[in-house]
């Protein structure tokens, strides 16, 4: 299946915008991705092996966190996985700087 890599992480994946990996589940696809591009690991996972809170993973148009089987969800070659770091912020604390 295809895994889409967001702009900031491409430097850790040989500048590719997408990587094709053989996988039966979402979890396998992610493991295969970091096996091929080990530099991605620390940007995607915390030191105890959990996906970082700001890293969103979408299977086609669905957030993997909200899929019934989560990372164990079965995938096919035609599916695509997208890694999307979150985008947020605000003017709240500008005075505290």
């Amino acid at each position, binding site marked *: 299946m295809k895994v889409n890599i967001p702009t900031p992480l491409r430097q850790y994946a040989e500048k590719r915008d997408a990587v094709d990996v053989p996988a039966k589940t979402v979890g396998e696809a992610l493991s295969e991705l970091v096996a091929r591009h080990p530099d991605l690991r620390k940007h995607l996972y915390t030191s105890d092996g959990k996906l970082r809170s700001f890293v*969103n993973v979408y299977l086609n148009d669905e957030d993997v966190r909200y899929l019934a089987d989560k990372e164990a969800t079965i995938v096919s070659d035609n599916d695509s996985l997208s890694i*999307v770091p979150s985008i947020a*912020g*605000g003017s709240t604390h500008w005075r505290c700087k």
Partner: protein
Amino acid sequence: MLKISQPDYAALRKHGEETYPHECCGVLLGKMDDGVRVVKETVRCGNTRSDSPENRYNIDPQELIPAQRKAREQGMDIIGFYHSHPDHPARWSNTDLQEAHWFACSYVITSVEMGIASRTHSFVLAGVGEEDKRFEDENIEVA
């Protein structure tokens, strides 16, 4: 440096006026070329922070999936984001930095004072990871 066309620049500033007193947000699509980001298109997003929309913004990643797909189909990338600061300066806040994760992308901030867009500044998220990330000022070239 960030290069942006006059219509795109005007559009992102106008967006902030339209959503005032709430923050607006959107995505910049274009090309990244040796430290120069060239905006080809701006995509408006809805601000999903309904709890405090006047001083927080949040782009639903769900909205980024089609933006990313569109960029890819047209040979572009997501090269940055924009948002507004209603009645606050066009400087990044600690919250902005903490919640920024798109390295080497531009974060454009427009100050909207009393409903009128005033200054617009751009910052690049620099560093190699969460530990050493920082915002660096960048010039905006409007052409």
